[in-house]
């Protein structure tokens, strides 16, 4: 796959001009490198979702149920009643085009159907045909078209070229959120068993073992023990994390991706160091869970119901373990789910206490009902109150910029907390250009379950706007470290950096914190968590 991906110089030759034909007359071309493999029937079956069977997107026959059109029509109709968002968004778009060049996939591919407005029109055209008077009377002149197998394929192709990042929604005069439309569209596709495997299998894994990667409890503990060994080597301190412990002060839940692959693992080590520090200094007792060992929720890329089924574990585990409240790690879509869905779906969490930081006494008023606090909020509060012993100079060889992940930015608004934390632990920090950060941040290009290997071209195209902005600060300020608060970013951005901006590494926020954190009784550190020499220690490193 990777070797078939076009070179950066080729991929950047983007033509943003549309074809001469009207878009309904341009047939979909499902192109290698731009799509993810079809869901494994075993995973679909394990979850009890419809139409589990082997199928291949580039084959003619998608092995759909006989009455697939009816299933879609009924599904559409039902959801129009269930989601006002969809109904309103179907009706009121004026095609002003403000959203058009806001999507990283349009910028990176030039494919006009990646303009959010057209992505939505793919569905809207069928909506008009099936549900509106004008569509029925005027057909194509009202922008209506009937559902056909080609339309379905077009839906599938382009709904999996949207990372549900909501950037378009910020610019739309009516707040039309194409991410919401994509979520709805994917939910419909799942009625026919048209998921991608990079989503379906993690979901099945998560359902069974508690995390996307399918790590079983004993292996999960083993992996974390590994980090403890590494930490001991670097700091001379043996950290002893708790697992599945009842009545701890705090239950900690974070995406499993960080337990599994670099550079996320360094963030996981950061958590371990932080919790050890807080235990030694303040007696704070944090527990991990192997049952709720996943913060992320690929169910949210499948359907609302699947999202709820996976998310349920957080509160179920909290109910069982009885912590005072839950602390959540660095993740993007996990926080979209926690912020805008969890409490509604699986709450009320009245069996926990409204979160208070026992060390500073701060009440997290904004998390009063969900009882779940973001680690950036927690860290910012600790640092503000001077509760962490920090030596930011240990990060002096890192020239840092911060990538706002889509979901914490546009589904939560957590913008200044991570910046405060990072600036407190790193002396060299530069922002990317204003139109590419905060609520206008660009997606990593691999969100919403698209960070597979087979769609590398799609991912690199989608990562272009983000990478281009990194390149700008890389060239201007020598930025060599891209910080983020998202596990998918940590999995996806290293590839994007290698491809577009070689020389920039990716780090989590907590990794930077842990580098700077002075542990009680630590040996003199010569390396950071990655085993790379600290500034001024280059000699000592043998």
């Amino acid at each position, binding site marked *: 796959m990777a070797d078939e991906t076009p070179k950066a110089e080729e991929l950047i030759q983007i033509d943003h001009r549309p074809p001469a034909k009207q878009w309904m007359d341009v047939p979909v071309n499902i192109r290698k490198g731009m799509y993810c493999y079809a869901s494994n029937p075993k995973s679909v079956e394990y979850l009890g979702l419809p139409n589990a069977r082997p199928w291949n997107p580039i084959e003619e026959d998608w092995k759909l149920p006989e009455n697939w059109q009816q299933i879609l029509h009924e599904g559409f109709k039902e959801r129009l009643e269930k989601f006002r968002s969809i109904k309103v968004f179907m009706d009121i778009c004026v095609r002003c085009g403000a959203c058009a060049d806001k999507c990283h996939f349009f910028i990176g591919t030039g494919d006009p159907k990646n303009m959010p407005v057209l992505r939505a029109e793919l569905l809207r055209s069928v909506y008009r045909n099936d549900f509106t008077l004008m569509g029925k009377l005027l057909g194509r002149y009202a*922008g209506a078209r009937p559902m056909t197998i080609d339309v379905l394929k077009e839906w599938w192709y382009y709904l999996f070229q949207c990372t549900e990042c909501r950037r378009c929604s*910020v610019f739309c005069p009516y*707040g039309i*959120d194409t991410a919401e439309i994509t979520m709805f569209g994917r939910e419909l596709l799942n009625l026919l068993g048209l998921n991608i495997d990079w989503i379906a299998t993690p979901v099945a894994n998560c359902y069974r073992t508690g995390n996307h990667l399918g790590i079983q409890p*004993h292996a999960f503990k083993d992996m974390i023990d590994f980090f403890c060994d590494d930490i001991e080597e670097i700091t001379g301190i043996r950290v002893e994390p708790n697992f599945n412990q009842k009545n701890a002060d705090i239950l900690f839940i974070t995406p499993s991706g960080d337990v599994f692959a670099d550079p996320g693992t360094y963030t996981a080590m950061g958590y371990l160091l932080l919790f050890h520090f807080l235990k030694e200094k303040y007696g704070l007792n944090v527990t991990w869970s192997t049952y709720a060992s996943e913060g992320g929720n690929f169910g949210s890329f499948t359907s609302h119901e699947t999202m709820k089924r996976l998310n349920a574990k957080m509160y179920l585990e909290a109910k*069982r373990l009885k912590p005072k409240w839950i602390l959540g790690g660095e993740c993007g879509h996990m926080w979209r789910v926690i912020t805008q869905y969890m409490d*509604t779906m699986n709450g009320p969490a009245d069996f926990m206490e409204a979160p208070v930081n026992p060390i500073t006494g701060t009440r997290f008023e*904004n998390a009063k009902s969900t009882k779940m606090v973001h680690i950036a909020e927690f860290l910012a509060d600790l640092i503000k109150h001077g509760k962490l012993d920090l030596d930011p100079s240990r990060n002096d060889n890192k020239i840092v910029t911060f990538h706002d992940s889509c979901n914490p930015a546009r589904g939560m608004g957590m913008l200044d907390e991570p910046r405060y934390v990072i600036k407190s632990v790193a002396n060299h920090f530069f922002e990317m250009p204003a139109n590419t950060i905060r609520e206008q941040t660009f997606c990593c290009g691999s969100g919403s379950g698209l960070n597979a290997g087979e769609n590398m071209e799609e991912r690199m195209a989608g990562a272009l*706007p983000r990478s281009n902005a990194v390149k700008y600060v890389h060239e201007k300020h020598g930025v060599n470290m891209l910080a983020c608060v998202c596990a998918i970013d940590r999995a996806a951005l290293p590839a994007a950096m290698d491809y577009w901006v070689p020389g920039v590494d990716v780090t989590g926020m907590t990794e930077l914190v842990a580098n700077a954190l002075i542990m009680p009784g630590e040996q003199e550190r010569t390396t950071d968590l990655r085993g790379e020499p600290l500034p001024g220690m280059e000699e000592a490193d043998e």
Partner: protein
Amino acid sequence: MNKFYMSSLLAIFALALIAWVGAPALPWLFGIVLPYLAVAVFVVGFVRRVMGWSRSAVPFAIPTTGGQQRSLPWIKQAKFDNPSSKTGVFVRMALEILTFRSLFRNTRMKMNEGNRLSYHLEIFLWLGALAFHYAFLVTLLRHMRFFLEPVPGAIQMLEAVDGFFRLEILYDSVQFGLPGVYMSGLVLLAAAAYLFLRRLFIANMRYISLPSDYFPLLLIMGIAFTGILMRYFTKVDIAAIKQLAMGLVTFQPSIPAAISPVFYIHLFFVSVLLAYFPFSKLMHLGGIFLSPTRNMLANTREVRHVNPWNYPVKVHTYEAYENEFREKMVEAGLPVDKMPESAPEEMTEEEKE
């Protein structure tokens, strides 16, 4: 050649022709029946649409957060872009509706030398849209003079202001012998023309535009054009028109003699616009108030939002999980709820919550 805008253009000409030919023969149809019908369709259609939206549930609180959340007391919240209070939402909505705030953010992406992407403020869409809507509103309000007797002071004042600027700027050069030129009509025509040409000449705009995008613009341009025609170029009997208008609103309709055919075209266009309105994208007028990404509170972790159709789902319980992995957990030293019995116990894959 794009058959989408051509078809809209042809439709407009056809409508004009219908009124031109039809009105002299059937003035009561064009002057009384159709306007009444159009208003009825508009009101009923509009209300039904809005009711239809309101009937749909709002299962989740999904505001698009456009700024810093309310979190720690020392972090400055973006009170309007990420509103956690009703006042904040009110201001956010007011800014959207009155100033098109989101559209004001608009940027244009550009690929520069050296493959560097840049994003520039693109203000013309915002400007054109704002001009268009305000001009429309002012024109609409100004027309109340035909329907109200006596003409309220507020409307007279509006007319004075609307006419005032033009009077100052153009009075000497454009000598029609008129008391003044109303800005709103001209701005409406110009703004609509700009919005139309934008669709024609920007390639991607042309690509996404449907006949239902060209048609309302052309129709409104037609309304404005016939209006301007009447006011400045052809002589129309204002008194007669007011008589007709007053007849309509007092439900004592009558057709005064000597009404120019241009007026009937104007009126017919307006009738068509009204009747078309509820079935078209023009309903964004009502929809924006109901858009969940804008009108919801962003205090979603602080206050629980209730989903009216929330239903229980199948979950993989801890018991089922421990049953599957108990031996391994014990071996790894992980705490378990139930110690393994000597006899291996059967595994439950799934259990309902």
